[in-house]
């Protein structure tokens, strides 16, 4: 591997986004599965870095998941998006940041399609007026929330308490980065680093002391596939694709996976459990599996947030071996507690994949 070659590509694919004053839009999946990640993101940018990230109570889903499950027409998704843009405009913002990769892809696609087919934009403008009596303005800058963390990665590094380093060996942790397909595969220039060697997560890993693992199936999809997951009969597709990725990364013995799409960590996490249940095979050392985390969770960890505040207990793959490697203190008793130490019981232990 010739790193200079990659650096050259990274240098070529840098997008220009401002570092403040954003209209923040949530992700259906992230808030449902990794609620603490969005909380952490806003805490970091607002409180730790002092930036202006505004959230409007009236914004909704972008409809991206329904759109990519072919449940709603393209015009519907575009009009919902136009409504979000209208909310941004009404709130006095020009920069738009979303938490979801599917959204990010759909926003990008929508803006590009409108650019190519202005008559479609006009049609959507009419739809929005007919349905909501709103008018929208297209955002000046569009970013994904991981772009922001990437942009602030050195600021975060300055506040870093636990770098991505194995405290026992002193060596950097081996980190697999997994980029959501819709981040830059459709429009390579819209993502940091482009489509083939995206830099958005690599930049974070490097800045926080980790070592990036580049394995053959790095670019492969996690296997979500929308309808291929939502319908039980199709889930074989989804788990098989994750399986393929893990088989490919296994020889590199990665310590952790970091993702920028809210869905991917769910699949990379839960499918490890399913693969273990079905085949008895586990990845990572000692049968614990390889933790698949969101970039907010990783940022939170290195900045010294409490692992249970970050919601790491909602992952099926045990997080404790990683915490120990990084030397992060945690209280095992508090892992499954509710607010104010409320006893919520303990999840059952799976058959094959180890839990602490």
């Amino acid at each position, binding site marked *: 591997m010739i790193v200079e070659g990659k650096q050259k590509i990274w240098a070529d694919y840098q997008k220009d986004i401002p570092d403040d004053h954003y209209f923040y839009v949530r992700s259906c999946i992230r808030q449902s599965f990794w609620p603490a990640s969005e909380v952490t993101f806003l805490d970091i940018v607002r409180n730790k870095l002092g930036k202006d990230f505004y959230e409007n109570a009236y914004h909704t889903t972008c409809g991206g998941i329904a759109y990519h499950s072919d449940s709603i027409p393209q015009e519907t998704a575009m009009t919902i998006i136009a409504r979000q843009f209208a909310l941004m405009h009404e709130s006095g913002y020009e920069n738009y940041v979303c938490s979801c990769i599917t959204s990010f892809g759909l926003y990008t696609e929508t803006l590009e399609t409108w650019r190519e087919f202005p008559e479609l934009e006009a049609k959507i403008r009419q739809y929005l007026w007919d349905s909501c009596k709103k008018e929208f303005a297209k955002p000046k800058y569009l970013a994904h929330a991981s772009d922001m963390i990437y942009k602030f990665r050195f600021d975060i590094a300055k506040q870093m308490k636990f770098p991505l380093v194995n405290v026992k060996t002193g060596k950097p942790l081996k980190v697999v980065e997994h980029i959501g397909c819709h981040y830059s595969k459709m429009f390579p220039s819209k993502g940091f680093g482009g489509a083939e060697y995206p830099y958005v997560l690599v930049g974070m890993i490097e800045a926080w002391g980790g070592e990036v693992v580049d394995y053959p199936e790095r670019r492969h999809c996690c296997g979500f596939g929308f309808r291929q997951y939502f319908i*039980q*009969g*199709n*889930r*074989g*597709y989804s*788990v*098989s694709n994750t*399986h*393929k990725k893990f088989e490919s990364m296994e020889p590199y013995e990665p310590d952790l996976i970091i993702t920028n799409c809210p869905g991917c960590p769910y699949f990379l996490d839960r499918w490890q459990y*399913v*693969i273990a*249940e*079905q*085949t008895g095979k586990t990845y990572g050392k000692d049968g614990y599996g390889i933790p698949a985390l969101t970039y907010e969770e990783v940022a939170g960890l290195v900045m010294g947030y409490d692992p249970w505040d970050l919601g790491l207990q909602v992952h099926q793959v045990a997080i404790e071996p990683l915490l120990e490697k990084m030397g992060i203190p945690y209280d095992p008793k508090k892992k499954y507690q509710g607010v104010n130490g409320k006893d919520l019981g303990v999840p059952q232990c799976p*058959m094959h994949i180890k839990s602490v």
Partner: protein
Amino acid sequence: MDFGFCLSPSSHVKMDSVDLTTFNRLKETNPDVNTCIACGSCTATCTAGNFTEMSFRRLLLMLQRGKEDEAKKMIQRCMLCGKCTLVCPRGINIRKILLDITR
């Protein structure tokens, strides 16, 4: 636990582990197996191909991609009429190869 789905087998042709014994043996007696340009003339003219999936150019590929069982199944359809040999632009003696595959 029954999840209602399971891992699917990969259909990738894994060139690293393809067993080429039959093809290599064939190549020794019929060096022209290498010269197929997949033009499809054989398939288009095939008498059996009129009724079935029989396709010699595909059959050769099957042998090269480790699908020997499929190939042998396909040969069962062949009527040995030899039209394929007549139309092959590369002059491959297809009928001979078909017979040799079975030996």
